[in-house]
């Protein structure tokens, strides 16, 4: 359980396992339900285009407590593939991303941050993870450098 008491729906784990084993799904975006009770799958996509994925995160929304819609945090898992600079082939790393834009409301930011470990712990087989808070953090090049530890 997370520090906020928020639960992870079983669908999160099954979708993640599908990504891990079948390799068809390229990314999953998870969200908290509007009542902040449970983490659910928002989208599982076979489109491996990074910019398409990035747009999804940038356009994510959350409702604040007085019902206003603003930018929203999300969790995501991306099956990240890259070629080693040394020419020794392709690597694939299942990457966990905690996306929490700095200009999102304080309430969604708080709930997402305090619920993150619950989701992370129920997904077995993550190769790497990072926290992203502004558009630069999810530029392809900066992610590539982070995930490959500079070896791409």
């Amino acid at each position, binding site marked *: 359980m997370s520090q906020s*008491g928020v*639960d992870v729906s079983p669908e999160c784990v099954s979708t993640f396992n599908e990504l891990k084993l079948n390799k068809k799904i390229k990314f999953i975006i998870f969200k908290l339900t509007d*009542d902040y*009770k449970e983490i659910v799958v928002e989208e599982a996509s076979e489109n491996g285009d990074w910019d398409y994925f990035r747009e999804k995160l940038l356009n994510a929304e959350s409702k604040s407590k007085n019902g206003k819609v603003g930018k929203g945090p999300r969790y995501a898992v991306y099956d990240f593939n890259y070629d080693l600079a040394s020419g020794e082939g392709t690597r694939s790393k299942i990457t966990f991303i905690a996306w*929490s834009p700095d200009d999102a409301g304080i309430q969604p930011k708080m709930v997402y*941050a*305090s619920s*993150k470990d619950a989701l992370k712990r129920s997904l077995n087989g993550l190769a790497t993870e*990072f926290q992203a808070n502004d558009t630069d953090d999810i530029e392809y090049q900066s992610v590539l450098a982070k995930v490959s530890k500079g070896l791409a």
Partner: protein
Amino acid sequence: MASSQPLTSSVQPTDVYGGDEVSAIILDPGYSSVRAGFAGEDAPKSFISSYYGFHNDRQIFGDDDTHNPLPGMEIRNPMSKDGVVEDWDVAKSLWHYSITSRLVPMKQTDPRTNGLNDDTKDMDVEMEGTEEEEKPLEEHPLLMTETAWNPSKNREKSIEIAMEEWGCPAFWLQRNSVLAAFAAGKATALVVDVGATITSVVCIHDGLILKKSIQKSPLAGNWVSSQIRALWNTSEPKIDLIPHFMIAAKTPVDAGAPAQATYQKFENITDSFRTREEERVLTEFKESVVQVWPGPGRLSSPNPAGTTNVDYVKAQPGRVFEFPNGANQMWNVERMNVVEGLWDEKAAIPIPGEPAVTKGQTIPEMIKASVNAVDMDLRAALLQNVVVTGGTTLINGFTDRLNQELLNMYPGTRIKINAAGLTTERRFGSWIGGSILGSLGTFHQMWISKKEYEEFGAGVVEKRCK
């Protein structure tokens, strides 16, 4: 009673909001102030000073009465300079006051025993009625914040008070640095908290404090005040720090001219009272005049023009500060000198009778020590997630300088500082974090219930609140 309904209609949890109404109370005690309020609200409704008056064996709380120049009244504080409770009896009463004065109405007490109708001659008639002590929080779960270094004895004491004396149905303790990190949207962060008596740097990974990374130093808000005192004491002519309450009347004077004021005389004003009133003037000075040299480099560093930054600042317009007695003068590079010691131990103004500032107490060195204490692989992530909180960080230029110092120490590393733009979010960061957490419907299952407490005792807090 209308006031026993704690949430106003505008913040009443709705289905959109997701919070079930639990009307939990969030209590965030610090050295200079106690913040208390209802979960789900944006800011603490009750904000009172931690300083209390001690007069004729009586404790006086709150911001009105403790500023009243009563003859012989001492000003004291139940917290240690480390931000942990020292005097439990007073701390308990102070927190009780912070909650009952603004949030929970005092229950009506029996007029025969509440002392209000006591006639001095039959004082000792019936005292057993007071046995049934008031339990003000019987309907309110209590979420308290604590410092990262709060000893386990103190943690157990907190739950004891909440459960036994206040009758809380449920209790939770949460580290304030973790709350500040979460409120910034980060489960992993390096939290720099500059408060009144203590500056701390703490690394947090996935919502857990890395114990080895905890760094503390007394170079915080009150230390800056003592630097200003030292500056004024050594000024030519020496500046007399006369607090507001002593001024009867004043007439405007030119800058630098002696004050034209008449003073009020008071009998038997204690030093501690005077010091605290002086502190208010110093606070005003800190808020309106003091500025951190924003960088690049340090205040003493050379600049491209071939001089030092000091010369550059001297050529810039200063800021005027008017003392309570009407005397006023321009402050130029001095307004930066008083905070330079936070970054550069050599720049600290020596205070007679106090040990010199060491390098390890400065903010950059604390961050370095903290980061060096954690795993290599984590360091980059921490430096990208520096969260700045605490009232003293609101001094102009603070975050710019912090950024400069970090870039200097870690060239080539991506540094990102997160400092809430809203003043309230910076001052009440951990309270607000607690407020959101405590209002979550799902947080229900986290609370330590009264039943659990009865079953396992106070030690349960160590097991549950990591």
